[in-house]
């Protein structure tokens, strides 16, 4: 499975090169400082778009995390993002709950939903997770519309409560999205160093070895999915806050697909720079699609998706076929 994605593989073989390309700690810190200072120099309308870009970057990060630590592709992360976004929006609109309380709840809701999805396929590897999440992503806008008593239906909900009463709302949207992205990148950097993170990586490349050293596969699969979906929940909360609205059109199957494509564009990177790369892609492409209105970009998106899925699952399917021939797999 570690060989499953050419790009990922190449990247892993040359950690030094990757460092050079996306900057060592110094360059990353410079990037972070630049983003923090950006509102001093750019126009407010740009701040709005950048805030959405940061939220999208966090969403891309959640998909990349699942690929890196779980070896899984999900075409349904819009579902977990929607869960986070609507948690924040509904809590604010119905109960006046501020973001600093609803945000942890959005993460928890995302994580629980992720575990619920991973549970049926916890012992299986292959395309099951991708297919089940995709089915829900497809149905999601209808579900949201149907629950319009809570979700505001097609028109959605307006998220407007300030975190700091005095500060301009535009700046708050920008900084909340940026700081959440920082937090996501930081948490994943910590995870990589932790015992749990290392155990997840071992379980992904050698499940039998992980088993032999006390890491249960079920635990690994559920944990990877819960973390990823939790981050997606935070991304959804960030999207809701940064864009000031939540509506079903923000969480269609296309959202899910572009999250995955953005993750591929960022080469599944978990650093700030890579996440921003994927986020920028995700922010620009839908606008491009909307303005062109032609079918070509859609075919393009479908082709891209097909390439990703074939690249990811071909080795697994081949080994499955070989295994059928031989009986069962040996660790």
């Amino acid at each position, binding site marked *: 499975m570690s060989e499953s994605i050419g790009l990922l593989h190449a990247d892993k073989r040359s950690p030094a090169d990757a460092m050079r390309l996306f900057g060592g700690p110094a360059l990353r810190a410079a990037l972070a400082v630049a983003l923090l200072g950006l509102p001093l120099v750019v126009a407010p309308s740009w701040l709005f778009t950048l805030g959405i870009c940061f939220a999208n970057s966090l969403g891309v990060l959640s998909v990349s995390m699942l690929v890196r630590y779980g070896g899984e592709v999900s075409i349904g992360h819009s579902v977990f993002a929607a869960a986070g976004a609507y948690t924040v929006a509904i809590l604010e609109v119905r109960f006046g709950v501020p973001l600093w309380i609803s945000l942890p709840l959005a993460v928890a809701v995302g994580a629980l939903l992720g575990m619920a999805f991973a549970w049926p396929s916890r012992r299986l590897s292959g395309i099951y997770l991708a297919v089940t999440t995709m089915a829900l992503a497809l149905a999601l806008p209808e579900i949201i519309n149907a629950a319009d008593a809570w979700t505001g239906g097609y028109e959605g909900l307006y998220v407007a409560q300030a975190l700091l009463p005095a500060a301009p709302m535009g700046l708050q949207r920008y900084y909340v999205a940026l700081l959440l992205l920082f937090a996501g990148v930081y948490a994943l950097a910590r995870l990589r160093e932790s015992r*749990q993170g290392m155990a997840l990586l071992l379980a992904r490349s050698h499940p039998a070895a992980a088993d032999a050293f006390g890491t249960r596969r079920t635990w690994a699969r559920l944990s990877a999915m819960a973390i990823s979906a939790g981050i997606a929940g935070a991304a959804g909360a960030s999207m809701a806050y940064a864009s000031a609205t939540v509506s079903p059109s923000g969480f269609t199957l296309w959202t899910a697909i572009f999250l995955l494509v953005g993750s591929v564009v960022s080469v599944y990177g978990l650093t700030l720079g890579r996440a921003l790369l994927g986020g920028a892609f995700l922010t620009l492409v839908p606008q491009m699609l909307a303005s062109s209105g032609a079918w070509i970009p859609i075919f393009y998106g479908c082709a891209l998706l097909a390439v990703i899925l074939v690249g990811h699952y071909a080795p697994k399917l081949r080994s499955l076929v070989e295994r059928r021939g031989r009986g069962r797999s040996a660790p």
Partner: protein
Amino acid sequence: MTAPTLTASGLHLSFGGIRVLHDLDLEFRPGEITGLIGPNGAGKTSLFNCLTGAYRPEKGAILLGDRPLRGLPPAARAAHGIVRSFQTVALCPDLTVVENVMMGLARNHHAGWLDAFLPLPRGRRERAAMRTAATAALAEFGLVDAADRFPAQLPPGNQRLVEIARAIVGRPTVLLLDEPAAGLNDAETRDLTRVLQRLATPDLVMVVVEHDMDLVMGICDRIYVLNFGEFVACGTPAEVRTDPDVVRIYLGSDDD
């Protein structure tokens, strides 16, 4: 502290009607190095897989001391200190060498999820302690310099030694080594021999599957010979070497 004896009796394993292990009785004792030899496909790795819980034998009992193991999943057996190395090196390519070895200690550590995401003192202390122990294990094989490299950057022999370091770092009570010397050069084999002999104390049950007969005959106190899933001989190296069945198996096959 003396390690418990690992025993199995009446062990049967088959895959889709093909018999892999047939009615095995064995007793692996602490303080000894037990050799497990046999031609390719004899079932040596399958026997390890039964002992660690990766395979489920159809029949038979496996006991660690007087604790029955059958039915326990691999992770639970790992918690009892049963540890193995793999015939094909199973190191994680995304982890550095020292991190791979640290995974051998994972079952002894319990920092929670908060420690995983936040820089809390407990998680840091745990990581530092794991790193120290893992570095010491690497030092046994002269691999400290490779600690922060990735497995793919090491020659195959060194990769195997890293895997053995991962197996021994957690002070197991049962150590199952599957062809630990495969791919090692002479110097690496000497390092390995020295480490294994030093580990042969009453607090460890050690079983070595190996095709290198000089190594097996040199370090083992007792040798089991497996052929087509059945034991054909068991005894000291001298006894096994002269056993007519063993001689026939080894002279009659093209392996070794």
